[in-house]
């Protein structure tokens, strides 16, 4: 598959090797988050007039889901300010770490080295999201809690355990980073294998060992790599490449798929569907139940959400995969087949998230200009934009865009399912038909999901 190494450009190589560009962006993001926390906790409780709500859930979210994740994968994780204070404390410095580490530096427990806590964290946010998205104080407390948690975890565990195992946003970004046309890989894996010091992992004179605990030679997908580029600084052989590549190059890979990753796909897809129904749908009762966090109605809503996401959706998908195995004749381990086909949920889920986000991002983006002038809703007008009228952007074009994105996602998922089928069963003439048969129920599942999402958003 075609790749182009961006580091061939001396300018880009210098830019990525330097810690300053990343640090400056990270500090800018930190300032924005601190302002969002302060506005959330001390500003007006009116969400549409509070910087905390608009900057985070409209502007940042739009930049993340519509641009950063599809184009740069874990680009956001690269500049995310949440781990910045903790990492400073842990290392004893920002650019020049202290000789002796601070904190306990414990290894993350072996049993928890998976995505289940991240999945649970995201599910918890999802069932409370109507309150988080509308109440500035809750958003402020959440951001503060995330920075606090990242800092505490940095002081107890080694490296970026919070980002790798706990951060709910990181899980989301990691899953969909697989579609991005950018990847960090090694140029020659044999060279890495022969390199005894493994400075990319343990650190060396040029920089830190991989904060994400990744051995770059073992990278086959984008999800585990936080794009901090430390390995670029520590590799003595200049063996790291930052490639431009085709979209979704990670996705057809069937080997080594784990159920925690598969469930992340179910959770993300289920959340996109649930958000579309709850936040954009006409069902006031569900909306109210989702908003009344802590009440019996909310418990029923949360139970329904969790059952749909962790039971119904995976159950339906598993039935489709089982049907495919029946059609094509069972071969290989069912769990592995299920996990492999779950990769088809990635383009489907991303399309669902992008389409869902288009619904509210462009209709609410005009709220950004007033909150830039008056972040706390305190009656200020710093840039003369405080009294802007609400103006939905791209109004009539949004449904067409959504339909195009959802149908594109379906086509991508269908093509991917077929490729996964061929990888699992073989690509020769004899097995090709069986591969298509095995993949066809998964394509049917993707079709139904797309129709449901189209109905929720446009119908």
């Amino acid at each position, binding site marked *: 598959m075609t790749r182009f190494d961006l580091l061939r450009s001396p300018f880009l190589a210098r830019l990525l090797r330097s*810690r300053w560009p990343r*640090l*400056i962006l990270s*500090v*800018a993001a*930190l*300032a*924005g988050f*601190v*302002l969002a926390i*302060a*506005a959330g906790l*001390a500003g*007006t*409780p*009116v969400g*549409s*007039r*509070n910087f905390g709500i608009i900057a985070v859930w409209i502007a940042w979210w739009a930049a993340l889901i519509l641009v950063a994740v599809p184009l740069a994968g874990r680009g956001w994780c690269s500049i995310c*300010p949440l781990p*910045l*204070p903790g990492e*400073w404390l842990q290392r004893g*410095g*920002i*650019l*020049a770490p202290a000789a002796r580490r601070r904190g306990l530096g414990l290894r993350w427990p072996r049993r928890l080295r998976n995505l289940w806590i991240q999945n649970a964290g995201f599910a918890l946010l999802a069932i409370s999201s109507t309150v988080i998205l509308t109440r500035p104080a809750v958003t402020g407390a959440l951001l503060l809690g995330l920075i606090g948690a990242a800092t505490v975890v940095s002081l107890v565990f080694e490296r970026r355990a919070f980002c790798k195992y706990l951060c709910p946003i990181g899980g989301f970004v990691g899953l969909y980073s697989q579609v991005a046309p950018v990847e960090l890989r090694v140029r020659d894996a044999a060279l890495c294998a022969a390199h005894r010091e493994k400075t990319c992992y343990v650190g060396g004179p040029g920089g830190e060992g991989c904060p994400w605990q990744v051995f770059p030679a073992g990278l086959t997908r984008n999800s585990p790599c936080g794009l901090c580029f430390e390995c670029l600084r520590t590799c003595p052989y200049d063996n790291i490449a930052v490639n431009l590549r085709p979209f979704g190059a990670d996705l057809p890979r069937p080997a080594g798929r784990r159920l925690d990753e598969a469930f992340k796909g179910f959770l993300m897809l289920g959340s996109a569907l649930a958000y579309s129904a709850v936040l954009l749908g006409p069902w006031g009762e569900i909306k109210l139940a989702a908003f009344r966090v802590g009440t019996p109605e909310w418990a029923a809503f949360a139970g329904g959400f969790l059952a749909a996401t962790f039971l119904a959706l995976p159950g339906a998908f598993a039935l489709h995969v089982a049907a495919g195995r029946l059609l094509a004749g069972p071969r290989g381990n069912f769990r592995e087949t299920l996990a492999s086909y779950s990769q088809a949920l990635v383009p489907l889920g991303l399309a669902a998230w992008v389409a869902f986000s288009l619904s509210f991002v462009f209709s609410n983006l005009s709220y950004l200009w007033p909150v830039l002038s008056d*972040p*706390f*809703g*305190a*009656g*200020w007008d710093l840039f003369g934009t405080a*009294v802007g009228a609400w103006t939905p952007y791209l109004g009539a074009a949004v449904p067409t865009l959504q339909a195009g994105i959802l149908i594109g996602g379906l086509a991508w998922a269908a093509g991917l399912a077929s490729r996964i089928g061929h990888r699992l069963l073989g690509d020769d003439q004899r097995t090709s038909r069986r591969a298509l048969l095995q993949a066809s129920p998964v394509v049917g599942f993707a079709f139904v999901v797309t129709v449901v999402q189209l109905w929720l958003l446009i119908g």
Partner: protein
Amino acid sequence: MRPEHLARLLVILGVLLPLVGAAIILLPPLGRNGEVIEVHARVAEDGGWLPSELVVPAGTPLTLRLTSDDVVHGFAIGRSETQAVDVLPGQYSELTLTFDRPGRYTYYCTRWCGPGHWRMRGTIEAQGGGATPSSAAEPPYVRLGLDLDAPHPAPVVPERRPSAIGGEALGIDLPAGLRGRAYYETHSPYQAFQSLREQGSFSRLGDERVWDLVALLWRQATTARALEAGRALYAQNCAACHGEGGGADGVMATSLPGSLGGADDAPGPADLASLESMMGARPALLHGKILRGGMGTGMPYFGPIFTDGQLWSLVDYLWTFTMEYEE
């Protein structure tokens, strides 16, 4: 400066600058302390006006910075001609008021903001200033000794809505004692009907014709301007419960009375289109009900809100539900 120190400075500034900015923004505007009071509006279920009690010196300008923490509200001072101000979510409206006379003034919400809209009231106590507080005149229902809570059905009611136009078409001179504001305010339509019936000159008229004459008397006691003012007041303050046509079928009628602070078993809104009830009601009684409110029901008291002129305009308008004043 060493790069590490510069990096640390950057991170510290990244945290401190927004916090310092926040502190500056949230500090009260300089030089206006003491003269400016910030008032937050929330639906009654979440606290209503915050603060809901203000004490200010009489005769000194008071600037209120009004903002809403939830939905659109309106701010007005009761029994005054000052224009209502919209109070918008997350935005500020400023209003400068001067209370020349000491006394207790009520401010209230003028926008339909929720089921407890009527409970959104606050008071401004204007103190000192030398002038004496204005004393309220005795309301007519007290003067007449009317029991506002007693049922008041008319023993005889017309079969259809009496028509002032029909009454006028009869071309009859109405007795001077029944004409005019003083009689109208203190008598029910049924009493006027009885008085007309007792006069021999109307004996040839059927009951419906006499009721038409009553409607004419009632119409002649008011003005088109008062009716228009009453219509606007009714639409803004009463229609939500009593209904657009007075038939006790407003959008909030079903949530009465418990949700509006009344007892759960209290009666719903009065049917202002009921001939039996209205023909037995004196205007002074309706005036008193609006002024005092329905004790134990969801009916709010408008005494501190409406001027006497507004109260009477509203009373005059209420008769249009049971009498035809126009074609």
